[in-house]
Structure formats: structure tokens, C-alpha cells
């Protein structure tokens, strides 16, 4: 088998495929659908994974959350004091670099004569070191605010739109549960500035909140790990530190975004593999379609095979010709399927505003898998053709 013969087989196969356009297209359809579904399903899977990862990463990959919860039935919330947490921070500079207590609840908001409930969060000024608070105008809570328990607040865009008519409210005052607060900053828009979105929110210093809400128990602490690599060690270290302080390892959780991301990656990875597996089944079905058509083709072309053999085609020449033909059909189907899959996937994902990710490795994999299908399912019919005896083949009509 030299190159000249192979390129001839290639030409002859193209001729034969083009000579039977309808049938070739139908044969390819199985592969096209198979490859396209692999591309679409993995693309959507990967897209979902990266959407989730992006929003998690926005929360900060170094973020560690400590939540205190009620310990059992009738029990009260046990908590670790702010001083203890500060102590942990000071003693473990290689693990964590910032800490902020956090409180949350709902308050009655009054601007002028209008009343509404809004969600309230309270942080330390150090919260800005843990996570970018994304202030569009004005400033975040300062150390001065914390030490002096200032009545200042940062408001979301819903409040700006609804009560200040879109005008910059910095310097204005609002009433929360009847107390006057000075607006010092405005958050960037997080949702769509509606009442039910994250933009209907107010943030005040935690020291102010403890007095204002008459609540001495901090139920949530945020930490920032020193590096992304130290997240796991910091989580473990915090767990044992709190267990030691509380005398029990229940009633609290220490979680990190990185940990959640790992778990999600695992789940979506499994899902993507499963979807690709299901799609691969249709590829195999497509391959069986190729085998079918090639077998029919061999029967129909018995005489042609006889002629070719009579004038000197070797067994390998015939084998190559049919194998090349089935491989070309599946390869063409693969290419069309990839184009079709990427096109449809992107279109659908745009319509449902999801992310669609086309991984080059997945494209290559599905292409080579379709090539393999063509060769694998082409072998049996090609062997059948090659084994035909020239006399019997010539006699057939």
C-alpha cells in the first residue's frame, strides 16, 4: 500500500460518496447527531460548571465562613467571642489574614414618610479586606465607625432608585427602626434593583448593630485565608480552635468557597461525563448505521469488486477502499456534527442565557471517536468485500 494507491482510494471513496449523496447523507446523520449531542451536552455541562464556579469565585476563593447554630433542641446559641476570634487571627498569620464578625436581620426602613422592610447586614471595617464590598459612590465602613459605633450606613441601589429617585444619597439620612443613619456609601448594583433583589439592603457597622439590635451574640464570622493553598489548613485549624473553645465539635460549621467549588466540580464533572456517555451511545448507533449501509453497498457493488480484482486489485486494495469510504463518511459526519453541535449549543444557550463552553479537547475527542467508529464498524463490510472471489464477483449481476 503506497501513498499513490491510498490517495486513489481516497478519490474513489469521495466519488462513491458523492455518487450516492442521499444515502451518504443519511448514513452520516447518525454520526452527526451523535457528535452534535456530545458537543451540546458537554458544552452545556461545562458551561453550567463554569457559571457556578465564576459566581463562587466572585465570593472569593479565600473566603472562610464560620456559622454558629443552635445546639440541639431547646438549647441556646453558643458562640465564640469576637476577642477569641481576633486571638486566632493574631496567632495564625500564616493561615488567615483578616476576620470580620457579621450580623444580619430585617429592619424597618423609613425615608421621608415611606416605610419598607429591608435586609440589614453588619460588618467590621476589615470586611473590605476579605471581600471587595463594591462601592459605587461614597465609602465603606471605617475603623472610626467601628470604634465610635457611628450611625452610618451603606445602601443598595433599590433604595437609591425607590427613595432618592436615582440621585446620589450620600450625605442624606434614613431611619432604620426609628433611628437616624447617615448614608455614607452606595453599593454597586448586584441584582436588578428590585425590592426582592440583593439591592434592597443596608449595611451598618457591627458595633453599632450590637447596640442597636440589642444582640450580643455574633453568629457568623468571615475569615480570609492567607493564600488559596492555606484555605484547607485554616479551615481545619479553625475547627479545632472553636471545638476547643466550645468544648464540643457540634453547633458550628466552618466552610470555604474552595471546598464548595471542589464538591460542585465533582458533581458537575460526573454529570458531564454521564451526559457525554449517553450521547456516545447515539454515536455507536450511528456506527452501526454505517456498518449497515456499507454491507449493503458491498452487496450492491459485488460486480465492481470483481472487475477491480480481475484487473489486479489486491485484497488489501479492496479492503482499503471500503475502509477509507466508511472512515470518510464518519469523519465528514464528525465535522458536520461538531459544527452543528457548536452552532445549536451556542444558539440554545444564548436563548436561555446560559454559558456554552466548547472545549478543544472535547471537539478533538469526538472527532477522533467518530473516526474510530468509522474504522471499527467499517472493518466487517470491508473484509467481506475483500474476501470476494473475483470469479463469483464477476458472475453476479
Amino acid at each position: 500500500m503506497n501513498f499513490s494507491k491510498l490517495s486513489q482510494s481516497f478519490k474513489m471513496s469521495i466519488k462513491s460518496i458523492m455518487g450516492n449523496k442521499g444515502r451518504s447523507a443519511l448514513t452520516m446523520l447518525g454520526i452527526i447527531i451523535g457528535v452534535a449531542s456530545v458537543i451540546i451536552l458537554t458544552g452545556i455541562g461545562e458551561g453550567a460548571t463554569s457559571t457556578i464556579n465564576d459566581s463562587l469565585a466572585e465570593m472569593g476563593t479565600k473566603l472562610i465562613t464560620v456559622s454558629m447554630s443552635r445546639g440541639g433542641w431547646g438549647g441556646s446559641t453558643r458562640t465564640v467571642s469576637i476577642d477569641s476570634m481576633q486571638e486566632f487571627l493574631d496567632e495564625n498569620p500564616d493561615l488567615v489574614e483578616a476576620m470580620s464578625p457579621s450580623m444580619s436581620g430585617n429592619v424597618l426602613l423609613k425615608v421621608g414618610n415611606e416605610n419598607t422592610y429591608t435586609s440589614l447586614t453588619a460588618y467590621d471595617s476589615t470586611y473590605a479586606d476579605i471581600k471587595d464590598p463594591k462601592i459605587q459612590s461614597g465609602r465603606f465602613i471605617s475603623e472610626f465607625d467601628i470604634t465610635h459605633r457611628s450611625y452610618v450606613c451603606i445602601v443598595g441601589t433599590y433604595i437609591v432608585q425607590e427613595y432618592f429617585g436615582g440621585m446620589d444619597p450620600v450625605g442624606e439620612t434614613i431611619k432604620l427602626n426609628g433611628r437616624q443613619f447617615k448614608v455614607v456609601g452606595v453599593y454597586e448594583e448586584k441584582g436588578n434593583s428590585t425590592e426582592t433583589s440583593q439591592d434592597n439592603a443596608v449595611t451598618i457597622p457591627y458595633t453599632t448593630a450590637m447596640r442597636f439590635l440589642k444582640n450580643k451574640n455574633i453568629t457568623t464570622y468571615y475569615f480570609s485565608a492567607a493564600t488559596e493553598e492555606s484555605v484547607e489548613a485554616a479551615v481545619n485549624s479553625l475547627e479545632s480552635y472553636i471545638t476547643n473553645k466550645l468544648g464540643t465539635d457540634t453547633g458550628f460549621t466552618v466552610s470555604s468557597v474552595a471546598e464548595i467549588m471542589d464538591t460542585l466540580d465533582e458533581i458537575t464533572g460526573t454529570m458531564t461525563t454521564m451526559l457525554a456517555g449517553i450521547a456516545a451511545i447515539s454515536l455507536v448507533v450511528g456506527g452501526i448505521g454505517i456498518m449497515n449501509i456499507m454491507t449493503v453497498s458491498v452487496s450492491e457493488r459485488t460486480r465492481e469488486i470483481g472487475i477491480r480484482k480481475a484487473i489486479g486489485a489486491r485484497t488489501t486494495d479492496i479492503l482499503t477502499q471500503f475502509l477509507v469510504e466508511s472512515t470518510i463518511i464518519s469523519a465528514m459526519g464528525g465535522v458536520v456534527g461538531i459544527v452543528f453541535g457548536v452552532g445549536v449549543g451556542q444558539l440554545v444557550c444564548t436563548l436561555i442565557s446560559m454559558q456554552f463552553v466548547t472545549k478543544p479537547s472535547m471537539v478533538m475527542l469526538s472527532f477522533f471517536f467518530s473516526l474510530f467508529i468509522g474504522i471499527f464498524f467499517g472493518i466487517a463490510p470491508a473484509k467481506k468485500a475483500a474476501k470476494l472471489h473475483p470469479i463469483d464477483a464477476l458472475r453476479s449481476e
Partner: protein
Amino acid sequence: MIRLENITKIYQMGDTEVRALDGVSIHIKPHEFVSIIGPSGSGKSTLMNMIGCLDVPTGGRYWIDGVEGSKMTDNQLADLRNRKIGFIFQQYNLLNKLSALENVELPLIYRGIPAAEREAMAKRALERVGLIDKIHHKPTELSGGQQQRVSVARALSANPSLILADEPTGALDSKSGVEIMQMLHDLHADGNTVVIITHDLNIAKQAERIITIRDGKITSDIDNKNDRADATNVKGSDIGDNENGKTADLDADLKENEEKEKYIHDLLENTSSGGDAE
């Protein structure tokens, strides 16, 4: 050139053995023009398959150009056919999806000749059969005679040692038949070895040598050389017309072989009646 020694071919049909060829020995010398004639079922097709290396014998030995073909593998036989034999079939056996040129190129492809050289060779062959202006036509766009000329071109494109024609005029009208026979005569005149398998005495008689086969055995081997010169001059109108012209003269010249001649006539009748029955 070609030597068959005690060739037998036995087909197993259920429990019974069919001896298609029963100890056939033939020696064909280079540049000979031989016709093999016999009725259907005589083993003539099997003999052609043996000479054409399309089949291997059950027994006996076979040489073409000094190469022993009787003990070859399928691939070796394919190469032998490709290099040594140019086939001309009754049904042309062209590939309808390929152009005339591509059909003629086919044996050269399997020989592994580079494209440019191959095309030149194929064009020369088509020029020789007078179809240079039809090289891009598909067989279905050509008349029967033209298709057979393409197959002649295919047979001679690869410069084979032997041109093997199986009923080359069988599917043609008489005018095209004459043209094809003339082409075979020309090829022979150019020094090619030509073997024709036929059941048509008028075709057979144009050869230098007439071999008759019946029931798998050679029944006669007539030297027709003296008349060959006449035969090559036979005009189209004379062929197929037994009553007058050169064919009649040819019959007269064969008087010394009268007995065998009569036998061939008998054969011919058997054949045509046998053919009708089929």
C-alpha cells in the same frame, strides 16, 4: 509464453464431483493468435479463468511468462493478472461511475504507477482505439462498441503479455463486432499474444490456431496459420456470412482438416441450441 500442463479443476456439487477441466495441456507461444471454442458447459469458461489467473486449478501446473501461477496466493495472482493479462469481457465490465480515462487508468493504479505517467499511458491506449475525444465520457454515455473499445484500451494500457478476450463481440452488433475484431488483429500484428474464448466459429476462424474443448478436454488443436493472412483481410461484410466471400474460401482451405472442421460445425450447432435452452 503460456503453458498449461495436465490442468484439472474439480467442483464439488454436494456429493458429486464435477470435472470442469480434465487434464488440459496447452502451450501458447508468444505472438500467437489463438481462439478457444466450445459449447456452453464445455469447461471453456473455467479454462479462461485458469489462463486469466482468476482461479487456481485443483491439479496440474500452469506457467505464464515463465512464472508458475498454479500455486500462488490471492495477492500474487492479483499482481500476475495486473501485470501479465489484459482482459476483454463480453459485458465490457467497465465501472460506470468512472470516466473512460479513469477506467483505463484503473489497472495502472493497482500497479502503483504515478498519476502523470498513468494518465499519459491511458491516453495513449485510448488514442489507439480511436476514443481520444471521448476520454471524459462515462461508459453509459458511450455505445456498446465504444464501451468495448474502452475495455480494449484498458486491456492494453498496461502492456500485458497476453490479451485475453472472453466473447469480445458477443454483446455487439455485427459492425461493432468487426471493428473490435479488427482491433484485436491490429494488436496481434503489433506483436501481442491474443487469446479469444468464443462459441462463434466465424470469430474462432480468424485466429492462427483454433483449440476446441468439450467436457473439460481438448478435442482438437488446429493450425490455422496459413489462412490467417486471409483472415486478417476479411472485410466486415464477409464475416457472419457463411455462404460467400472469404469465409467460404477459408472453409475450402481447411479441407485437409475436413474432419475436424465438421466437428467444429457440429459443436457450433450444439452451442447455439444449448444457448437457446439457457
